């Protein structure tokens, strides 16, 4: 916003107008929540007011920060592992059409099986604790990356592929110069899809298994009847998940502009 001084006022007005036209529903939601608590005369234990929740988050950032950091770390490591394994799997399948046919059921499973619902099974198999949380965030991000990177590798335009064939490029050169750069936009789409999901999956696993992190902070606050903290955790998680999405979308736009 490097507007010249005379335009400053109108510009700010415009920006506020734009913000209002986009986020009025969110503001209305918060207002409705406040009105609901007030008109129903709900006990603070049942439903705290927006003011109490926002106040708790702003007054005690230290109470949230360690758990938030742990959840984000779990999600980030899981996404990184999932992307690596997904890309490796896609490359493996790319080398052989037979393998790619054999993997079709995997792609169907990815689209249709609710992985997050399998948290109890995964916990039983790999053990309770951080290992289970990491496995879940990894699995959640693996499938989209695997499928999208696979189609990204096949997306190179036929004409460019012909150029590489004519020049008798080796498979490795083709991969490095043509296919991997071509797959970057697909990988970034996968990142946008998985980043918010990984945060939420990590929280759900922490809640269910009682390991560290936001999910556990939430479970603890509910048990000790601290609704402002519990709803505050939900608020923090929502904001973080939206920010992850916004960040991943920005990365996607940048990357798509750079690589296409």
């Amino acid at each position, binding site marked *: 916003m490097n507007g010249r001084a005379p335009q400053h006022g109108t510009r700010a007005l415009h920006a506020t107008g734009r913000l209002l036209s986009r986020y*009025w529903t969110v503001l209305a939601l918060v207002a409705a929540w406040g009105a609901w608590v007030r008109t129903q005369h709900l006990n603070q234990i049942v*439903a705290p007011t927006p003011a109490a929740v926002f106040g708790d988050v702003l007054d005690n950032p230290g109470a949230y920060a360690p758990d938030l950091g742990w959840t984000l770390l779990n999600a980030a490591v899981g996404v990184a592992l999932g992307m690596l394994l997904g890309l490796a799997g896609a490359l493996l399948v790319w080398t052989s059409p037979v393998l790619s046919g054999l993997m079709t059921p995997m792609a169907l499973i990815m689209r249709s099986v*609710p992985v997050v619902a399998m948290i109890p099974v995964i916990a039983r*198999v790999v053990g309770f604790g951080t290992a289970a949380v990491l496995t879940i965030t990894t699995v959640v991000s693996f499938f989209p990356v695997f499928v999208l990177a696979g189609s990204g590798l096949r997306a190179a335009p036929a004409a460019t592929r012909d150029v590489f064939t004519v020049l008798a490029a080796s498979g490795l050169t083709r991969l490095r110069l043509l296919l991997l750069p071509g797959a970057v936009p697909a990988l970034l789409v996968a990142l946008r899809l998985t980043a918010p999901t990984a945060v939420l999956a990590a929280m759900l696993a922490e809640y269910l298994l009682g390991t560290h992190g936001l999910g556990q902070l939430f479970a603890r606050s509910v048990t000790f009847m601290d609704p402002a903290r519990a709803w505050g955790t939900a608020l923090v998680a929502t904001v973080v998940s939206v920010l992850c999405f916004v960040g991943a979308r920005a990365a996607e736009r940048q990357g798509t502009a750079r690589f296409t």
Partner: protein
Amino acid sequence: MNRARTALLTAAGTLLLLAAMEAAGRLGVLGESWPPLSQVVAALGDPVTRDLLGRALAATATAAGTGFAAGALAALAVAVTGVLLPVLKAGLDRLAAVVHAVPLIALGPLLITTVGREGTPSVIAALAAGFAVFVAATSGLGAASEAHRDVFRALGASRRSTLVRLQLPAAVPLLLDGLALAAPAAVLGAVVGDWFGAPRGLGVLLVSSMQNFQTELMWSAALSAAAISLLAYAALAGLRTAAARRFA
């Protein structure tokens, strides 16, 4: 010939996957908690287990089904509102994104105080399915070609008749895509909703059998949840293929 080969490879891949699950269980590479598939199926021979699983399956399928229907209708209504009143559109888009970003576990206590333990799974299913349908419906309603739009504009069609005669028919394939993706989301929502103290359902069965080391029961619950969402997805995806031919 090529199609036959793809089908053959897909079938082989499915068999291989099942065989790998069986072998991992037989060899015990993943420990006690990964039983052979045949053992899970054999456990269903016990009438008590079958009864327990059947009741849980019925509860979850009902919650997911009602949630799916309610969520899809609500999402379609919101998307259509956005088309008829463009002023509201940006706000509605943001609302959907934010509601989708609210972590499922955060909704648990809120829903238990408002709709009760019984209703929570279907409401979470509705929210999860609704978002997928909303995204598909918004892009579907914008999918009509510019040329067709120009014709409607030139003939002075009202916003409503453009919606009914152009935008809704053009949205059908994408909408069915969204519905296919919403079906697994609804099953997931129903299972997660069970974790907040629902009286019965696959989610309840999953957690209680996890805590009680009832490995076969846990696996049969997990595989049932996977099976219903796979079937619902496959049915809707098939419908989509049929519709794509009609509406293309």
